[in-house]
């Protein structure tokens, strides 16, 4: 493979990372699809959910959503599992591409070549965005292939929209961690902020359904802008896309300003 740029080199470096996460997401999606027939049956699940405290019911969501494959996947895969698993993946990825390379000394090696800091940062960010997209696409492949095994189907348009929004929200999470890491060179700070943002977003969105005081903080959660079940029922809201892309763009600008000036270890 010709490694012409930092972008292609980064993509090549992370080929096993992409493959591993792609297969993992495909397997997770396929597993959840194969559970769908059991979920669809009316019965004891309603009784079990009714017996749970209201705050905990956020983990299950509205049981009506379990009747259709699209809303079932939106509620059970995109609204819960993907948020946490993909969230962890993007924080790890952002740290590896920034402070990971700086701590190992590889960032200095690349910066000793005629590559500007602005160009390096942009190429690494674009590579990160592409890696996230490629890894997440395993979910779509897993769903698409396994739906034939249960004799159900999901609209490609809905699947595409869910995947697109997952990608956009994960790029936003990744951009925050990426920016803190590249702007400061501090692994500890970037990890704390990345994980804190992910965890608080998850907690707020999951528990706001049953906890009144959390509802006033809902807009602070990045997952608020990715209402997966609503997307499965109708379509993407452009204002949500604008908020998430806007956050990523602001983060990228901060990263540019800070990284151009600071010392590299």
């Amino acid at each position: 493979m010709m490694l012409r740029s930092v972008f292609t080199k980064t993509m090549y470096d992370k080929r096993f990372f992409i493959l591993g996460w792609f297969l993992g997401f495909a397997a997770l999606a396929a597993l959840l699809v194969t559970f769908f027939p059991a979920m669809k049956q009316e019965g004891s699940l309603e009784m079990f959910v009714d017996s749970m405290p209201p705050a905990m019911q956020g983990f299950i969501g509205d049981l009506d959503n379990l009747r259709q494959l699209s809303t079932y996947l939106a509620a059970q895969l995109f609204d819960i599992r993907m948020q946490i698993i993909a969230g962890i993946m993007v924080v790890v990825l952002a740290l590896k591409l920034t402070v990971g390379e700086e701590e190992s000394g590889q960032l200095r090696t690349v910066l000793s070549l005629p590559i500007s800091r602005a160009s390096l940062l942009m190429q690494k960010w674009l590579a990160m965005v592409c890696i996230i997209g490629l890894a997440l696409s395993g979910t779509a492949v897993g769903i698409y292939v396994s739906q034939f095994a249960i004799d159900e189907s999901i609209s490609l348009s809905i699947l595409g929209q869910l995947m697109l929004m997952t990608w956009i929200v994960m790029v936003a999470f990744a951009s925050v961690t990426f920016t803190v890491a590249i702007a400061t060179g501090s692994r500890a700070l970037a990890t704390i902020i990345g994980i804190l943002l992910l965890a608080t977003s998850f907690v707020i969105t999951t528990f706001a359904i049953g906890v009144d005081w959390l509802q006033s903080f809902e807009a602070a959660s990045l997952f608020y802008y990715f209402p997966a079940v609503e997307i499965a029922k109708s379509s993407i809201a452009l204002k949500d896309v604008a908020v998430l892309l806007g956050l990523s763009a602001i983060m990228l600008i901060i990263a540019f300003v800070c990284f151009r000036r600071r010392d590299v270890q």
Partner: protein
Amino acid sequence: MNKPPEPVIELSKVTKKFRSFKAISDVSVRVEKGEIVGFVGVNGAGKTTTINALLGFTSPTSGSVQLFGVRISPASAHRSHRRIGYASGDMELPDQITGRQYLRFVLNQSKQNHSERLQQLTDIFRPQLDKKIHTLSRGNKQKIALIAAFVTSPDLVILDEPTSGLDPIMQTAFLELIKSEKERGATVFMSSHYLQEVAEVCTRVLLMKNGRIVEDLSSDQLRAAGGKTVHVIASAKIELPKQHAVQIQTSQTAQGSEVIFVFKGPLHLLQEWLAGVKHVTDVTITERTLDAEFRELYAVEEEEES
């Protein structure tokens, strides 16, 4: 009237602080085109901090760094890197690719064809190019880093302890390469722990200590400073030469006396002194190593400070 040529490197009163710690202090250096400059000092002397400022990895707390007449900052350093090759003894290369892929990546950044030069350097260092870099030994990684530094035939080569991972054969090959770079007209700025190595190829030596440049010598001055170690045993009492001699050891015995001293003067004066010593039973005169001189320079500085 022609303007004098711009110096390749110009550091003016550069200070770099890390919180309250001054890593380098008021460092001023001017390096002209074609000079091969050795930059010598012990660990923590400030060599790497100076090189980091030259490459734009860090910005000085005060003072200015210029390369090829242009002021260097972290944001603009890449412009000068088109004319610079860099390698360090502990250089971390991208480890998930092969040496060949890495060198292609380096060449792609220069956007010029250097395949002939690559072949030439590969013939000199004989690196393992088709193995993943993370599987290579330190010495083999170092060979790839050195090839990458020289492959674009840069106007300025900056090296930070470049031979620390090389075996003696490769160290010799490297020193020969530096000599050929000198003939090509390239400027080389090379830090090292080893004064002997630096004295062999450099036209000028800077000695750094505690973040300051304490000596700036031509290589001829450095070699002359080395002197001779003289060891004389005689059955009579021996008086040291009145000039140019630094005593190391003197002992008087019932059988006579023994002296060891360093002589740093014209050799005919040593010959005249030796002719005056009575009842000589043994004489040994050896070239004093530059590393010993290096240690002495450091010791003198320490005494002056205390």
